[in-house]
């Protein structure tokens, strides 16, 4: 018996995965009434149509999964002529199945409403799960006609309302690969961008630009980010002493990330980071009687927030704002004055570029 079957009272909680039942969604009850009315009209004589229009049988505002993707999956489970018969029976009414994307969960309303949890937002898999549920509701007999292995992953059905007809087996002929044309979240991402930074302190105001490289590992809510920027040397002044500064900041950060489906082909992935930063500083005097160059490291705390616009391509543009606080900035000194000031206490900047989804 497949754990996908929504007919059981708690079929998936014991699986130990990130799926399980939650409370019922009450505002779906009227749709259930409409659904059974449509079912009652099955077999009625209506003018035949050559093909069922999109959205006639399965509709809704969801983009993950899309109604079209669910329809495709349903057609793999239920013969087309039977689907068309249901469609003819529903002539004159709206879609009899409605898919709603609620972010980490999605609803399938087909007489009753079933809410599934899928934080990974695997759109293809969602479509398969929804299709199984719809097929069970529409034509359990057809489901019994063929046997196949159930989908390997088991999304958590959140609210089991009235149990639909219970099949004994499930049919799935869907491949394991993600739905073609749908955006995929990266598990390992390599980002290259152009950045600008401004440093502010009691003695210094510095602007600089450079290139940044960042590796992010983790496709779930949390990820580890390691990055560095090579800023171009900049000529500036600290405490009235002209210097050339070369700064290479690097950091190790913990990233919290989310996903928001924009459309079937794009997804916004906002993120926020907090981490430890270290910057290599190379400071050279410019117009002293004898100039010297000194190199040091400065330590700080870095925060960042950004977003990836993920499409079907492995490359996704991103934009990030970041800031860094250096509690003990290095002192700049020149004889005979001694310490003339300190490097900036706070750095802020922005980076834009493209990220490559490696895995």
């Amino acid at each position, binding site marked *: 018996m497949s754990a996908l079957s929504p007919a059981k009272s708690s079929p998936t909680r014991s699986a130990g995965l990130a799926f399980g039942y939650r409370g019922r969604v009450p505002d779906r009850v009227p749709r259930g009434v409409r659904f059974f009315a449509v079912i009652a009209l099955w077999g009625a004589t209506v003018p035949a149509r050559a093909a069922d229009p999109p959205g006639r049988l399965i509709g809704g505002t969801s983009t993950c999964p899309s109604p079209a993707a669910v329809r495709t999956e349903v057609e793999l489970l239920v013969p087309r002529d039977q689907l068309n018969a249901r469609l003819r029976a529903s002539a004159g009414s709206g879609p009899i199945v409605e898919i709603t994307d609620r972010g980490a969960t999605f609803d399938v309303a087909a007489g009753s409403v079933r809410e599934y949890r899928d934080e990974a937002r695997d759109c293809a898999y969602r479509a398969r799960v929804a299709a199984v549920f719809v097929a069970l509701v529409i034509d359990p007999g057809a489901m019994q006609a063929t046997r196949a292995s159930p989908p390997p992953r088991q999304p958590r059905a959140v609210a089991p309302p009235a149990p639909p007809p219970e099949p004994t087996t499930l049919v799935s002929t869907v491949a394991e690969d993600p739905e073609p044309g749908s955006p995929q979240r990266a598990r390992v991402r390599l980002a290259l961008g152009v950045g600008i930074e401004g440093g502010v302190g009691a003695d210094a105001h510095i602007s600089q630009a450079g290139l940044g490289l960042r590796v992010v590992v983790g496709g779930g809510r949390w990820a580890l980010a390691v990055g560095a920027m090579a800023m171009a040397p900049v000529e500036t002044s600290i405490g009235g*002493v002209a*210097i050339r500064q070369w700064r290479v900041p690097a950091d*190790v*950060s*913990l990233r*919290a990330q989310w996903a928001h489906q924009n459309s079937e082909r794009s997804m916004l992935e906002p993120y926020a980071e*907090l*981490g*430890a930063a*270290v910057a290599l*500083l190379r*400071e*050279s*005097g410019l117009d*002293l*009687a*004898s*100039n*010297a*160059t*000194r190199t*040091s*490291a*400065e*330590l*700080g*705390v870095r925060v960042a927030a950004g977003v990836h616009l993920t499409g079907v391509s492995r490359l996704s543009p991103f934009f990030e704002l970041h800031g860094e606080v250096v509690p*003990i*900035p*290095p*002192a*700049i*000194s*020149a*004889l*005979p*004055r*001694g*310490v003339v000031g300190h490097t900036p206490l706070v750095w802020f900047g922005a980076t834009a570029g493209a990220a490559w989804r490696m895995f």
Partner: protein
Amino acid sequence: MSRPLRVRGPARGSAVALALACAALGASCGPDLGVGSDVLWSATFESNSFSEWTAVPTRGAEAFPEPGDSIVVSNDRAHDGTYSVKLTIDTSVMGEQQNTLLSRVGDLPVEGYYSAWYYLPGAVTVGTYWVIFKFRLRTNVDDESTTTEFYDLDLVNSSPGHMSLVLYNHLAQVHEIPLDVPHPVVPVGSWFQIESYYRNNQDNTGRITFWLDGQQIIDINGHPMAPTPWIEWEVCSIGKDLMPNPAVLYADDCAVSATRVGPTGLIR
């Protein structure tokens, strides 16, 4: 009742990582990055010698004409560190000029700051003059015989037992030049700094300025200085008719700089 604030999760991890990194790097947290120096030359005597003076174009350390005139590196006291130079002149012979001096010659910048610290262990009665800071000039850069005196900064008595300064121009018709700050007090028993800005231009952009412990006491600006860019600078004790005998003066932390040293400046 307040509860202690606890940092959890990623924030605590980052703080720990930062602390560990700071501990690992040690002194690199907030280091001092010296990007250069405007000090062109300095002498602190910390090598217990005159090597800083003899390694450059100089007349070196001189003391004459009496055997009692001496110039030695001493650890009696120091402005910074352990050593200073002790300039002692024998004032027992009245009417005779006694000389001890350290001199920089020839390679000095046309425009620069000259600084030295002095210590008077006791008040001295100045009968005729007592020069402690001196510029010389040459009318012909290549002819040593044309070297002559130019500006002297002298110690004088503003009142019995109290020391002050006067500026003396050997080329002016009125040699003694009134200071902008009349009778500045030169301390006895503590270190004081004399600094001069000297722009030895031969046109009306010439300038010479003096500070005592950071206070400007005279500024002569917009006048031709020496007839040539050649400069000799002396930290000295050149006196005539001083009492008591001997007259002792200490000097330390001498410097030539492209920017002002000031009382808080570092020369090394």
